[in-house]
């Protein structure tokens, strides 16, 4: 099977005829995707649709094979003994409803007790902390919440409640608190807006963000998160500028930045190395000089 991305249109016909599936419930031109034979001759002019089809087929085959290789690799590694720890550490359970060791997740068999205040069941470990919160003895917020609850339960005309009688008549018992918070916020906002005009504020914010970005980038270079830094350097002659390209992969595999630069100027190279984003540090093409340190994985940027 031809997997080369730039295959001629002749190959498309072979691809189509290799699909043995007839069953398809899909409408329109998608039927062709699964049909046994197409009335297309190699001498036909490749239309846009056919070209798009063939590109999609290639992409799809690639994806399918990726999944297949991944699955094969996992099962093969799981079966054999790990080279580092000499145990079967790569095999784990992937059944739904079990954890990776095969154990059932819910193990709740502790004795539960009913809270005297709110009548809800709690395991013994959580009983005391819950009771504190429930009775309002734990801290600020819990005492407030508990007082509200008490206020609701008691006689509304009692003079010891924290709510006024007007608020109690409303359906939402938190009404008073909400108004308090809102006032506080309003006062805060008013103070801030008086301090500086909007234009000034955004400008300074932009400058700060640019500075912080560059600082972040330079610190990221020397950060310990960096775990893979491979260098390919080509030296044409002793006098020619040193051309180097290297790529970095962070430990969580999320970023893959590739920089290419010669001795005098940095350039973004569009040569085909798949899955790399070419970015410059701050958007313009800076000059970067590289000093090679003793170990190949380090570098200093002036």
């Amino acid at each position, binding site marked *: 099977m031809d997997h080369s991305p730039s295959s001629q249109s002749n190959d498309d016909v072979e691809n189509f005829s290799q699909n043995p599936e007839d069953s398809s419930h899909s409408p329109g031109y*998608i039927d062709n995707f*699964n049909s046994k034979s197409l009335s297309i001759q190699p001498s036909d002019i490749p239309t846009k649709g056919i070209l798009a089809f063939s590109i999609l087929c290639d*992409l*799809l085959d690639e994806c399918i094979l990726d999944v*297949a290789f991944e699955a094969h690799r996992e099962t093969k590694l799981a079966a054999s003994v790990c080279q580092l720890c000499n145990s079967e550490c790569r095999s784990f359970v992937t059944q739904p409803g079990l954890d990776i060791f095969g154990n059932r997740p819910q193990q709740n068999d502790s004795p539960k007790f009913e809270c005297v205040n709110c009548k809800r069941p709690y395991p013994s470990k959580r009983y005391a902390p819950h009771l504190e919160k429930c009775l309002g003895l734990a801290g600020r917020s819990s005492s407030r919440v508990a007082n509200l609850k008490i206020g609701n339960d008691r006689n509304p005309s009692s003079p010891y409640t924290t709510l006024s009688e007007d608020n109690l008549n409303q359906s939402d018992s938190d009404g008073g608190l909400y108004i308090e918070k809102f006032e506080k916020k309003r006062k805060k906002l008013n103070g801030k807006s008086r301090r500086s005009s909007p234009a000034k504020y955004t400008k300074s914010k932009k400058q700060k963000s640019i500075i912080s970005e560059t600082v972040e980038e330079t610190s990221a270079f020397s950060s310990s998160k960096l775990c893979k830094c491979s260098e390919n350097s080509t030296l044409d002659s002793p006098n020619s500028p040193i051309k180097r390209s290297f790529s970095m992969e962070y430990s969580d595999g999320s970023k893959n930045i590739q920089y290419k630069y010669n001795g005098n100027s940095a350039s973004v190279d569009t040569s085909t190395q798949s899955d790399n984003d070419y970015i410059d540090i701050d958007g313009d093409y800076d000059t970067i000089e590289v000093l090679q340190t003793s170990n190949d994985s380090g570098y200093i940027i002036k």
Partner: protein
Amino acid sequence: MSESENEQKLASELKSRILETQERNKLKRLLTKRLRDCGWKDKIKKRCVDKIRTEGVENIKLDQLEEYVLKHGREAVPDDVKVEMLQQISSYLDKHVSQLEKNIK
């Protein structure tokens, strides 16, 4: 006919153009994302693993696995994913076919 030759040339140009400009990577990433989100990937992976287990991990040949999985994988792809990808690809082709025609002529 020079007409059809031209067209074929255009077709292969477009294909290689797609690869060069990393459009293919973008398309592939989109496709993997869609396939993962709709649950196709897990289904196919499970099928693969089952097939491998039935054959025996030592005995399984990659060719057999390839053949098996390509057959089932293609038809398991949901239609809306296929349609979306085709739309994306054809819009890209629309954008660039006029450019390339100029280059060839």
